[in-house]
Every structure is written in C-alpha cells, then in structure tokens.
C-alpha cells in the first residue's frame, strides 16, 4: 500500500495536471463537473501523499537517505536534463501540507465561487497550480524546481488576475509576475553557475560534490552562487525588498490567497533553501544574510501590518512577516524549526484567509475591518476559527504556532541575541496586530447595515478542519518528533526552553491585552495614537512608500530609457540608414549625368572602355611575348 504510493509518487502532480487538461479542454463551461473533477484529482493526490508519508515512516526515508526515481527529460548540448521524484521526510511533509490545504481550498471554493461564471476556469487554474506546486515539491534537481517554480508563478499570475476585468487585479497580477521574475533572474544565474561549476543540477549528486568542491576550492565562489540562489526565494517568498507584490496579490479570489499566497507557493522559497540546505549550511556569509534579511523582513512587515485597514492586507503583511521568521530560522541553522513553522503556518494562515474570505463575502466585498464589527454574533463558526488562528499565530499554547515559534526563537537565541530580540519584538507586534484584527472585526457592536450571515457548508467545513489542524499540528508535531524526521546534519533533541517560551507567552498576552484595551475597551483612542506617532504612522500606513519609489525607478530606468532608445532607433540608427539611401541617390544622380540621351556619347564612352581594355590586354600580351620571345 505504502509502496504503491511511493512508486507512484509521480502521479501526485500528474493527477491535478490531468484535471487541468480535462477541465480546460472539456468541462470549462460546466461548473459542477469542473468542481468534481478538480476535487477528485486533488483528493486522490492527498491520499497518495498520505501513502507517501506512510512509506517514509516505515522505510525511514530521512533527508540523508531519500528515495529517488529519475528519468531523462532532454539531452542537449552535452547536458543531461533529468526529471524525477525525490522523496524524503521533507518532501512528504510538504506533500501533505500542500495537498491538505489545496483540498480544503478546493472544497471551500465550491461555496465561494458558486455565483461566479468563471468557476470552471477557476478550478482549472487551481488544479494547474496544485500540479506545479506538487511538482516543485518532489523536484529532483534545480532545473526541475525552476521549471515548476515558474509554473506556480504562472498560476499565481493567472489566479491573481482571475477577475481580469478589474484593472487593479490585472495590475497586481502583472506586478506579482514581474517582481518574482526579478528574483527568478538571480536564481537562474545561480542555477546556471551550479550547472557550469558542477556539471549537474541534481540534488543527490550535488550533495556529494559540494563538500569536495569546498575542500578543494573554498567557499568564496559558492558564496556567490548561494547569494544568487537566495534572490529567488527573496522574490517568491516576499522578502524585503521584493515583497511588494504580495499585498497586492490579495486582489485575487480569497481561496487563492489562502492557498497560494499564504500556505504553499510563497513558502516555495523557504522550501528551496531547505532542499538545498547542504549548500547553504556550508556558507556562513549566506546564512547570515538569510538570517538577518529574514529577521528584518519579519519586523518590517509587522510594522506595516499594524496600521493596515483591509482585512486581507493585514494577513498579507503578516504572511510576509512569518515568512521572514522561517528565513530567520533557516539562517540561524535550524532547518527543523523553519519547516515546522512552515507547516503550522500553512494551516493557521490558510485558516485565517479562508475566514477572511467568508467574512468579506458575507460583507459583500467590504474589506475594511473598521467597517465591520460584532461579527462574532453573526458568524459564530467563523469567529471561533478565526480566534483559533489568531491564538495560533500569536504563539499561545497549546496552539500550533506556539511550538513552532518557540523553536525558532530558541534557535535564534542560540546564535545571536540581537536576532532573538528582533524576533521577540516581532512576535509581540504580531500578537498585537492580529488581536487588533480580531477585535475590530469581530467584537464591538453589530452595525445596522451589516449584511453578514454565516456561510454555507462548503465554506464552513474546511474552516473547521483547518482549525482542528491549527490546534493540534503544533503539539502533535512536537511530541511525535517532527525533528526526528526533518533535520539537517545531526539531529539534537530539543526540549522546550521555558525561559524563552515563557517570555514569548507573556509578550503575546501583553500585546493582546493592549489591543483589547485600545480596540474593545477604547481606553485609548487609536486615532490619537496614530496622530502622536505622526511620520512613523504615515510611513507604516503607506508601507514606507516603497511602491512609489519603485514606480519612480521604473519610470526612470525603463520607460524614459525606452523612449530614449526608440528615439535613437528612429532618428540615429534609421537616420544613418536613410542617410545612406540619400547618399546612394546623390551618387546615382552624379553618375546619371553622362547619360543625357546623346547616343553618340554613349558610343564614345563605350569605345573608350574598349580602348582601355585593349590597352590593358596588350600590356599583358607584350609582357607574355617578351617572356616567350615569340613574335610571329
């Protein structure tokens, strides 16, 4: 049974891909059939993934001893480009996370997209995304990973722009694609350098080659490669300074935000570093960069999230912040903590996004949390789920986030105190802004014009499932020994460090109390605080004006320069061409002068030529004759 799943792991991405084909070519117009096909495919993948997990557990396929299936995809110019399946504990974990969330989101979408005419298209894209993401997860080499990496990027583009008639959605999709493309550029360079340096892109082969290389040549060149590779995750996982696309990506349908921009695609960057940890772990400089950039992003995004008003935007910045956490964990050398947080975060962030979707749909597309209020009376299930999510992200025991966040904080504390401090402050702010979101939207008085009602069953049950997972996955992972399976190098048994855990619980509780005082009890006016903070508030509210800066740079470096190039092309390059044309005309006119219609002049010119030719040939004839000595 488990063997079947293991040897048919390639079916996991293939089934959703087939679903995409069937829906795209056949049942696009039929909502019901499309939904059934999509859910069936991802459900089957989910079951297979569970089988894979079973296989991993029974065969003990840890990261050091993976299971590999390999085939040649193309052979070109002396390179063998392979495709295949690499199954180890990390892969199995990712497979389960991705298929679980994808299945939940698929089911949820049946309810959410009910009235949308493009539902068939939606399910097609969702299936394509699932296929790409799962393909990425089981990647055997960098090229395969890059291919599916771009594939998920495409799906993200298509799904952000799903409401293509909205200009904002269209622009957001474009922005997401291009921003991540900049990251991909760096990553592609890194991959190329790996191919050129090692002659292979295969993870397994590289695992043996890299230490040898370091032994011989040192780490300086590899550091360049590592930094270039890291640019990819910066783009994909929304790290500063390429995070700008993620908040805008919230223009897409909410299930998409839950699946792609919270739980799965954005963690691909983290996953990539985890997968290639055997390279990164050897490069202290790169690790430092990753850790500090992650820490900074976590803090930076949290400061923005504090002042945002739209429901999903807050969640988006929170995602950026949490991704920063994961990066930080990777950077301080704890793959286990990072992956653990990846898993718990996937569940509770997907949960919160789906709650957001339910709320926004119930509010008839009203996204501003300050226009909501008292929703806990109208939508009790959603409220409870959301509360679980907030508790989880704030790191309260026994919810999932507590265990994973504690692991990260402990790992950071071991390496660098400033990083630990940064992470703790971020944790404090996270608890604050998430509670703010919860209190503002769900507490207080119900507004008179509030249309909210509890959502339908399709949307409710996935929430419940994810809520349960958000509660138990942390404790379960911790006590069932997540770290026994997903680890790099030598695994060390980690007990909970209660000094760190205790302080983080206290911080979170303080933050939540503060939020409660401000937004529910109204002890302090939030507006007054905002005014006191002045410039800081403005900066935070406008996300540090980074979008504006980028727009300015783009205008200058792309559009203006483009117009300049066009001007050069039409006036200088073409000018030369046309100048040559005019020159030819002029020369032609000069050469046409003798041709004045006087036939006899033509004759004279012709015979002048003949005379010249005769003289020329005579010259040689005489020369030859003088050599041969032959007169006649």
């Amino acid at each position, binding site marked *: 049974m488990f063997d079947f799943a293991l040897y048919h792991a390639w079916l996991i991405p293939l089934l959703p891909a087939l679903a995409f084909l069937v829906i795209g070519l056949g049942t696009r117009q039929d909502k019901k059939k499309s939904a059934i096909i999509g859910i069936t495919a991802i459900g089957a993948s989910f079951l297979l993934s569970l089988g894979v997990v079973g296989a991993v557990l029974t065969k003990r396929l840890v990261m050091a001893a993976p299971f590999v299936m390999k085939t040649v995809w193309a052979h070109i110019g002396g390179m063998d480009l392979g495709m295949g399946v690499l199954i180890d504990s990390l892969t199995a974990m990712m497979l389960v996370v991705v298929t679980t969330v994808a299945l939940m989101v698929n089911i949820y979408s049946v309810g959410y997209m009910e009235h949308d005419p493009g539902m068939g298209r939606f399910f097609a894209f969702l299936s394509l995304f699932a296929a790409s993401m799962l393909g990425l997860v089981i990647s055997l080499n960098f090229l395969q990973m890059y291919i599916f990496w771009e594939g998920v990027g495409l799906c993200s583009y298509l799904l952000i722009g799903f409401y293509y008639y909205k200009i904002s959605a269209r622009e957001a999709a474009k922005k997401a694609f291009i921003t991540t493309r900049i990251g991909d550029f760096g990553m592609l360079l890194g991959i190329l350098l790996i191919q050129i340096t090692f002659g292979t892109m295969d993870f397994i082969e590289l695992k043996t080659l890299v230490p040898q290389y370091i032994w011989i040549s040192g780490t300086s060149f590899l550091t360049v490669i590592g930094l270039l590779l890291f640019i990819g995750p910066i783009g994909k996982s929304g790290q500063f300074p390429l995070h700008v696309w993620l908040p805008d990506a919230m223009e897409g349908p909410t299930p998409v935000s839950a699946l792609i921009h919270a739980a799965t695609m954005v963690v691909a960057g983290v996953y990539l570093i985890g997968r290639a940890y055997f390279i990164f772990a050897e490069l202290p400089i790169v690790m430092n960069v990753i850790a500090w950039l992650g820490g900074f992003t976590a803090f930076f995004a949290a400061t923005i999230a504090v002042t945002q008003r739209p429901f999903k935007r807050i969640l988006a910045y929170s995602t950026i912040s949490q991704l920063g956490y994961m990066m930080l964990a990777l950077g301080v050398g704890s793959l286990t903590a990072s992956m653990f947080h990846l898993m718990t975060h996937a569940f509770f962030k997907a949960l919160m996004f789906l709650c957001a979707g339910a709320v926004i749909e119930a509010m008839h597309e009203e996204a501003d949390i300050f226009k909501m209020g008292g929703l806990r009376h109208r939508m009790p299930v959603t409220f409870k789920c959301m509360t679980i999510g907030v508790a989880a992200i704030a790191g309260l025991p026994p919810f999932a986030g507590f265990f994973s966040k504690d692991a990260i904080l402990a790992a950071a504390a071991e390496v660098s105190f400033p990083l630990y401090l940064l992470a703790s402050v971020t944790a404090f702010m996270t608890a604050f802004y998430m509670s703010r979101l919860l209190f503002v939207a769900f507490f207080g008085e119900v507004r008179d014009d509030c249309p909210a009602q509890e959502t339908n069953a399709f949307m409710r049950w996935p929430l419940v499932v994810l809520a349960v997972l958000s509660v138990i996955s942390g404790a379960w992972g911790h006590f069932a020994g997540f770290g026994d399976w997903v680890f790099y190098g030598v695994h060390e048994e980690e007990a909970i460090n209660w000094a760190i855990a205790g302080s983080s619980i206290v911080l979170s509780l303080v933050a939540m109390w503060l939020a409660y005082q401000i937004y529910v009890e109204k002890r302090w006016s939030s507006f007054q605080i905002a005014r006191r903070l002045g410039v800081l508030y403005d900066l935070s509210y406008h996300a540090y004006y980074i979008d504006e800066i980028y727009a300015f740079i783009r205008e200058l470096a792309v559009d203006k320069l483009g117009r300049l190039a066009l001007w050069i092309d039409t006036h200088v390059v073409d000018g030369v061409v046309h100048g040559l044309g005019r020159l030819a005309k002029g020369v032609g006119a000069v050469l046409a002068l003798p041709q004045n219609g006087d036939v*006899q002049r033509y004759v*004279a010119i012709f*015979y*002048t030529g*003949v*005379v010249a030719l*005769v*003289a020329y*040939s*005579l010259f040689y*004839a*005489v020369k030859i*004759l003088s050599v041969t000595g*032959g*007169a*006649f």
Partner: protein
Amino acid sequence: MDALLGQVHALVAWAFSLANDYDVPSLIEAGVFFLFAGLALLFACGVIFFRNVVHSALSLTATFICVACLYLSIGADFMGAVQILVYGGAVAVLIVMAIMLTRRDNMAHSNPSRGLFRHAAAAVLTGLFLSGMAAVAILSPFKSAPQSLGDAAPGLADLMLSHYVLPFEVAAVLLLIAMIGAIVLAKGAEER
C-alpha cells in the same frame, strides 16, 4: 648604245630575277587584295564624307561589293554571293528606300556631320582604337595556313542542319520577328 642595251639587259635580267625570286601567283594575290581592300576603304570613307546621303548609300554599296570580291579572293564563294545578294542588294535597296522616304527636300546637304570638336575627339578615339587593334592584329602570333575545303555550300548546309540547328532556328525566328517588328513599327499604332 651598248651601254643603253646593257642597261636594258640588266633591267630585264633584274626583272627576271625578280620574277624568279617572287612567286608571281602570290604577287597577283597581293595585288588583288590591295586593290579591293584599298577600294573598299576608299568607298567606306566616301560613306562618311559625301555630303549627299544618296552618294553615301551608293558608296556603301560599292564597299559591300569590294568586300564580296575579297571574299571571293580567298575562296569563300558562298559568302561572297551572300554578301552581294544581301548587302549589295537588299540592304542597299532598303537604305535607299529609307532615304527616299525620310528626305523630300534638297539632297545636296543631306548628310550632315557634327562640329569640329566632335571630329577631333572622334579622330583621337578612333585612332587610339585603331592603333590598339592593329597592334593586337600584328602582335598576335597566328600561323596563316590557307586551306581549301572544297565546296562551301554543302559543308555549310551540313553544319547548319546538324550542329548549329538550334541557332539556325533561332535565326529564322529572329528574322521573322524582325520582319513583323518592322511592319508594326512602320505601320504605326494609331492606324490600328
């Protein structure tokens, strides 16, 4: 008297020795060649220098006939005949007719030439050309090996209908086209 007689003797002896030294047939041949060549050139100059175009045309005909005689002198009987028939006959008649058709006034100055500069330039060019060609002709190490191949007409016919049959056909078509073309041209478009 004796002295005079002696001189006559000497002269006769010289003449005989001359006749012995030089083979008379080749002298006659040379005479014929120089006669007709000279005449042909003379008439050719006449073509250019006569003021009256009719005289020019007659002079041209005379040139043709002289050339025909030259052909005959080297045994090209058939060519000579063709020369007389085609050039001396048809072409001459055509030209005279053309003159009659295009000139209806005074014939005295009907063959105008260009100015002095033109003449000078033409003389220089022609002189250069001639000297060049003459040099080529003289310097070329051709071995003259006169040959008589028998009757020309059957040989020509054989060649024309075997190896050169395609050019022959083409020439026939060319003549036809030229005839039609001449008719069309002379008839004019507006009368159609």
